[in-house]
């Protein structure tokens, strides 16, 4: 694995940063700013959905408001990964973390379990899914255990979520999936990492892995396009993606190579082009510690936020210019969701909720801790305190 940067190239930036640090401003992460009254009203209506784990190690679906006040909770059989809402129904889909054995369909207002789905024999879920634009089909990324090949399963809500179509993801380890604006093309992040439930979460093919970004016809499963990174970056796992109104895909990756390698972790792709790695100062990618946990566009589709919990970093990118525009220190930050054109809501493994403002280039705490018992005025007891899991969804 080749080094991607010449480290000396960064020294001017570093010298500047040193001065910034000595002035005591460079680590500014919690500068105060106020949301407009209209924005506040809008924000207060929001509901947040995320998987979470308490200090006892129990796993939950948590439905919360923006203040971190729990509105509902549901105990889950095991750790979950992505939670997403049906576009028109009060239905949440909670996908188990890989190797996932369940999907919980939950009422988004009451937190009541509607139905539990299980993978077909010989398959497991990969933690992500989506509803088709018309809301009828549930689409999930799955693993065919025997062949270790990725599969996309399509379940019909109108037939009790029976599988009505299933096709290859054209890669190993499909993770996050997205739909293009026409709703007909499925974009699949094939992480490239082979796992087998018999070996838990162990990664079995790190030396040969070849992740890919794949576009499939949602109806037929036909492969429309498949893109890979250069061979030298074959251990950059394409795992988390988002897509904007221009059908640009932002890619947040995790690196499975040697811990001392220095590699980029962010990229963009548009149909018919090569995947373009995003440039950033070497310090930034180093600080992200080979791992992005989640990524999303803001409502404008111009900016994207990526979280790097291993590096305690939230990075903000101007995708139109393919540039990093900000970076803040945010302990164990992972879940991220767009909050209109104002910025992003971010959740952390420390149980906190943050708001990042694109306009102010600053982050502030929305809620310090989220408790299962909804104790507002006093700190929650230890076992009740939540660690927000990888992904966050928001709805009004």
């Amino acid at each position: 694995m080749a080094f991607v940067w010449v480290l000396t190239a960064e020294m001017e930036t570093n010298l500047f940063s040193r001065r910034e640090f000595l002035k005591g401003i460079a680590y500014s992460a919690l500068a105060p700013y106020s949301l407009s009254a209209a924005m506040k009203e809008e924000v207060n209506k929001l509901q947040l959905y995320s998987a979470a784990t308490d200090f006892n190690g129990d796993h939950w679906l948590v439905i919360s408001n923006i203040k971190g006040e729990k509105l509902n909770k549901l105990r889950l059989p095991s750790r979950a990964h992505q939670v997403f809402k049906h576009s028109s129904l009060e239905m949440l889909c909670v996908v188990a973390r890989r190797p996932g054995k369940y999907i919980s369909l939950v009422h988004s207002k009451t937190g009541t379990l509607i139905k539990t789905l299980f993978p077909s024999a010989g398959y497991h879920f990969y933690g992500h899914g989506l509803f088709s634009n018309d809301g009828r089909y549930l689409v999930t990324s799955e693993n065919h255990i025997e062949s270790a090949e990725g599969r996309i399963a399509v379940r019909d809500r109108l037939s009790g979520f029976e599988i009505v179509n299933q096709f290859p993801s054209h890669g190993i380890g499909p993770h996050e999936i997205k739909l293009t604006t026409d709703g007909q093309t499925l974009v699949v992040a094939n992480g490239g990492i082979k796992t087998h439930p018999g070996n838990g979460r162990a990664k079995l093919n790190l030396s040969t892995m070849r992740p890919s970004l794949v576009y499939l016809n949602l109806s037929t499963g036909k492969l429309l396009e498949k893109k890979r990174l250069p061979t030298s970056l074959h251990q950059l796992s394409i795992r988390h993606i988002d897509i904007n109104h221009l059908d640009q895909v932002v890619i947040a990756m995790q690196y499975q190579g040697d811990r001392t390698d220095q590699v980029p972790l962010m990229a963009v792709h548009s149909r018919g082009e090569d995947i373009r790695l995003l440039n950033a100062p070497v310090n930034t990618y180093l600080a992200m510690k080979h791992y992005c946990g989640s990524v999303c566009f803001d409502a404008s589709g111009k900016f994207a936020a990526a979280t790097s919990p291993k590096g305690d970093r939230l990075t903000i990118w101007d995708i139109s210019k393919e540039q990093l525009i900000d970076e803040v220190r945010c302990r164990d930050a992972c879940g991220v969701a767009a909050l209109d054109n104002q910025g992003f809501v971010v959740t952390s493994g420390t149980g906190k909720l943050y708001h990042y403002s694109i306009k102010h280039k600053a982050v502030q705490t929305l809620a310090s801790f989220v408790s299962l018992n909804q104790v507002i005025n006093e700190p929650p007891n230890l076992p009740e305190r939540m660690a927000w899991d990888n992904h966050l969804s928001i709805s009004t």
Partner: protein
Amino acid sequence: MHLVYILLIYLLSIGSVAYANEVAAKLTNNQTKRLTADQNESAWRKFNITTVKDYVIPAYKKLAMTNNDLYLVTQSFCHTLISSNKDQKKAELQIAKDAFHNSMDAWQYIQNINFGPIEIGLRHHSIQFWPDKKNHIGKQLNKLITGGDVNALTVDGFERNSISVKGLPAIERLLFQKGALEQFKNKPFSCEVLQGISRYLSDTSASLHDEWLTTMLPQFKDAKQLDGYFEDDIDAATALLKTLVEPIEIIRDLKLDRPLGSQLDKSKYKRLESWRSQRSLLNLQLNIQSLELFFMGTEVGASSKTTGNDKGLRLLLTESEIVDIQNNFKIVKDELHEIQAPLEEAILTVSGYQTAKSLSISLTQLHKSLEGAITHSGIRLGFNSRDGD
């Protein structure tokens, strides 16, 4: 826009061990009756300030002092090369090697601190570029020496050199190479380079000490200040505690398991941290000593250890947790003691290899006990950061 570009990582600290949740899951109801971290924030503030004052800053001070000595000694050594006889040169070379050892000793004590000023300008890498899988140090050092450019050794010029040639491993290569005196004689500019590196190390470590004293300490005293480094005292405590716990994984994975390989005939002594100066075992011993000091709350440089449980992290843990952690420290230290130095030779023998393997397991146990106790004290070192998907 002001980008926060002062970030560096200790690359070695990209951990992936996933038992944080296991630890949390094993807590009993009785145990969880303890205060949550934020209910005990003032105690954590005290812990933070004491740790920075008694552990971090003195250790950086020692690094600054030893590196200053190293700079003085290398100047003297290079001067001797010009005019002295062979015996004097040999003696000066030994003095320079001793000074290198002192600097490396001091660095091993504070190597675990991977946040704050050390993040700026890739200084962690600059002080020690390791592991160097692609022989960057060798290539860049050779380039610098054969280039013979004095401008590359000025204060500003040196900043622009590759980070791989700025630190202790580059000095180690120069001083501990075969026929060092002959090499210095044949390539006189290499001694200029040696002095340039030493000066950089001296300046850098003096800056680190100063920045911790003047910039970081106030951040711990008032962790909630606006535009501050930390969000609150718990955030500050978490940053410190991670440097107590996570380096144990690094030590195990990079300093032991990587050189050991999967079996005896796969072990590679050149993957050890300081194989050229044959001090890899000493590095491990100093790492563990330093972490134990941190845990015990004993001031760096203090003549004796405090025996009561009224200092450092021990204030915030239960008696049984303290005993368990101390016991695990003892097991690790005993196993380190059992290994016949140098480690570079020991891992090539059956008994040395086995003890090193056993040490690796004991480090895991030490890590678990520390992480478990800290989790129990109300601070989760990481959730998504430990076990992401």
